[in-house]
């Protein structure tokens, strides 16, 4: 039997990696992937909490995270396509500094 706190530690590590990805990467695709990593880490924390407290609520909330992640990915990737068509790049620094004509 593994202690569920180790899963919480793993979730914290994954969440921190996701934060580093959001801050450090300049490509919009990598930022969206890092947000996915963070959502997945939050889901892992929910499942670990479900194992610690012995109730199904954490697992149910992981199921509720799934549509949130799907909707976020759908809208985020559509925005990425629009940005790429307009600026011909996905570099967020370039997009942020380019002037509106």
């Amino acid at each position: 039997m593994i202690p569920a706190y180790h899963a919480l530690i793993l979730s914290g590590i994954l969440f921190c990696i996701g934060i580093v990805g959001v801050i450090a990467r300049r490509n919009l695709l990598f930022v969206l992937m890092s947000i996915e990593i963070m959502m997945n880490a939050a889901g892992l924390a929910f499942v670990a909490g479900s194992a610690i407290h012995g109730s199904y609520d954490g697992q149910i909330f992981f199921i509720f995270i799934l549509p949130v992640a799907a909707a976020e990915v759908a809208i985020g990737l559509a925005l990425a396509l629009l940005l790429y068509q307009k600026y011909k790049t996905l570099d967020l620094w370039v997009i942020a500094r380019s002037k509106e004509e």
Partner: protein
Amino acid sequence: MMQILMFYPSAVIAVITTLMVIFSKNPVYAVLYLIMSLFAVSMVFWSLGSPFLAMVEIIIYAGAIMVLFLFVVMMLNLGQRRVDEDLRPPSGKALILPGIFATILLVQTIACLMAGHPQGGTQLLNDPVALGHAMYEKHYLGVKLAAIILLIGSIGGMHLGRAASFPDTKEKDLL
């Protein structure tokens, strides 16, 4: 014992492959490493005593959402250099780490499919029927909210995709 064999290798694989996602140059490789990381996290779910969520993670997260990422990466023009890169056969060194990780994850998946429900432990919450009852009896409002979120996501995706398919028209013409 089996849960220990499932948990710690997949935890290490999850951390390393997630780091590879952050530090990789090619978005395609990043998406593939992210799929591997989600696979490892699903093995962690199994060892925590929820085999249903492990399969949901593989099918929906790694199977549907990540394939969406892969489609968009392929739709974006990545340039001629990447095309030339992809024509070369994969070198031996590049295959070592993904090969080891994929083999471990494959063995773990086969083991958890053979074992069915995780054995031992104090809190076993591995009944999908009880999970469904708890979800639709206690949290039915959350189910409705999830449906609304999915509806909003599909409407927003369709609207933005419609704008993306007519790049020359102005924003107000599409509204």
